[in-house]
């Protein structure tokens, strides 16, 4: 696998020099195996940042929905005081949930991009680079994470503007970033896996719409698990979004949470998602 390709015919070197192409004649050396994954993840994340730099429209339009949730739903339910939040104002309680929700909404439709890339030929070309499929999927998953992270930052600022007192401890914010990245990796891989099964944009849109609301309402993003009926508690217990929200609440508000369990579940979910999406990516390549 790591056999170096044989040299080029020497006769061509002169003509290449004439065109000034000499540096383009040597095939780059392969990186050591353990460096391939971080290199590919870095490359994919960079592309996502470059795209965001060229066109920020999505960042702005996507801020509308979380703003409405916080402003209308949050402010109203703060007055009603119907939801037991353990002494925290409801808006504060809601803010981490909305961060998680808006990050999930971005990730869950990331598969559409994969299908677009497949139809346009971008994916075909990516699959012919020396990038193992798992590394490609991981790269895409974290690229979706970068997008979600931007979104999370926007909601964080929005919440602060609305008077929610969130932490500014850099270590805790780093933890928030990690939780958002891992959860987005899982949800984008879920989306890519579904893309690998349904293969068309329309079907993926349908499936995406069908699962986002159950994931959102079947989590502790809007209300604590304690007020849920038993069957919904089961849904919440197997829903990675709940663990993400729990971690975000613990880190941002300092409410009691289960950080270790949360991060373990998020890590396992991300790993499982990457495995599933890598296996199903082959279907998109055909």
């Amino acid at each position, binding site marked *: *696998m790591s*056999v170096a390709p*044989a040299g080029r015919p020497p006769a*061509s070197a002169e003509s290449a020099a004439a065109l000034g*192409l000499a540096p383009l004649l040597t095939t780059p050396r392969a990186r050591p195996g353990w460096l391939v994954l971080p290199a590919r993840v870095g*490359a994919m994340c960079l*592309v996502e940042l470059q795209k965001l730099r060229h066109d920020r429209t999505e960042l702005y339009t996507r801020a509308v929905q979380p703003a409405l949730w916080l402003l209308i739903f949050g402010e109203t339910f703060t007055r009603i005081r119907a939801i037991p939040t353990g002494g925290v104002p409801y808006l504060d309680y809601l803010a981490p949930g909305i961060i998680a929700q808006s990050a999930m909404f971005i990730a869950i439709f990331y598969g559409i991009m994969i299908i677009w890339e497949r139809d346009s030929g971008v994916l075909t070309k990516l*699959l*012919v680079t020396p990038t193992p499929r798992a590394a490609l999927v991981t790269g895409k998953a974290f690229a979706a994470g970068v997008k979600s992270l931007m979104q999370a930052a926007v909601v964080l600022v929005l919440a602060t503007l609305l008077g929610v007192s969130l932490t500014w401890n850099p270590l805790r914010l780093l933890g928030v970033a990690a939780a958002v990245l891992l959860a987005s990796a899982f949800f984008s891989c879920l989306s890519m896996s579904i893309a690998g099964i349904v293969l068309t944009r329309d079907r993926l849109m349908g499936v995406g719409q069908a699962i986002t609301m159950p994931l959102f309402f079947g989590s502790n993003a809007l209300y604590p698990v304690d007020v849920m009926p038993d069957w919904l508690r089961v849904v919440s217990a197997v829903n990675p979004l709940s663990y993400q929200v729990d971690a975000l609440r613990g880190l941002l508000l300092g409410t009691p949470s289960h950080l270790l369990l949360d991060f373990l579940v998020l890590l396992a979910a991300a790993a499982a998602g990457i495995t599933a999406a890598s296996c199903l990516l082959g279907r998109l390549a055909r």
Partner: protein
Amino acid sequence: MTLDPVTPDPVTTVTVTPAPLTTGTMTPGTTGTGAVPTGAVPTGAVPTGAVAPDAVSCHGLRYSFGRTRAVDGVDLTVASGEVFGLLGPNGAGKTTAIRCLTTLLPVPPGTVRVFGHDAARERMAVRRMIGYVPQQLSADSSLTGRENVALFARLFDVRRRERAERVALALEAVGLANAADRMVGTYSGGMIRRLELAQALVSAPRLLMLDEPTIGLDPIARTGVWEHITAIRAATGMTVLVTTHYMDEADQYCDRVALMHAGRVQALDTPERLKAALRDRRGDDAAPTLEDVFRDVVGGDLDASEEGGDFRDVRRTRRTASRLG
């Protein structure tokens, strides 16, 4: 340029080829599969004592989508340094064949080798050696030209210290130096094709695989794309494997061509010899074109055939054409 002495027609179609060129040396009139050019490799091209492996060798390649046999037993060998054309109408199996060669579709071990590396067992080694430009427009329109090329430099492990230089050179080689920092969304169809060429070049591939590189382009842009391919081949000595259904292009730019129909290679030789053989068979003086050769080889089958590409093929082609237009 070294030409084999037994070549009946010494006028090759390639105009500028300072790089060593391997010309097929099959006896005139030999058509069919599995033809291997012999003896014509210039001694200067290979280190003494070493036999340069063929760029591509494929034996008994088959691939089916469900019950449709897209590729049905293809044998062919592409010599190192030549421009090889895979010709045929829509649905002939060209794209499927090229996707097998690029490791995109799984093949059984031992059927496909690229510079001696097995496409089934050494996928990563094979991918490092090829630059692939798919039929669809594969550049990302929401990035600049430079960012598009830089992404592929990163994916092929071009180190940071040489990355900027290589990216700039690749863009310059295809004449996009001035447009490098524009968004690809503003490029014309011909420019996008050339950008894709730069994306493939930045990793210094030994084998460039182009799937219908001029599909949907106007004649001027077509010529432009081919001029760049020819110049780059001349400068770097890389092997070029191209699929096309434009017979005139193949005649003009390819050293050897394989005519594909219904998943099989029906004839394989230099365009000159294929045409000469047909002229001899017909026994008249009218100079046949490569298209005449194709009709002759395939017979009445071509018009009668209903397998002129399925819906997805046609949709893909039209979509590419409309994005280019």
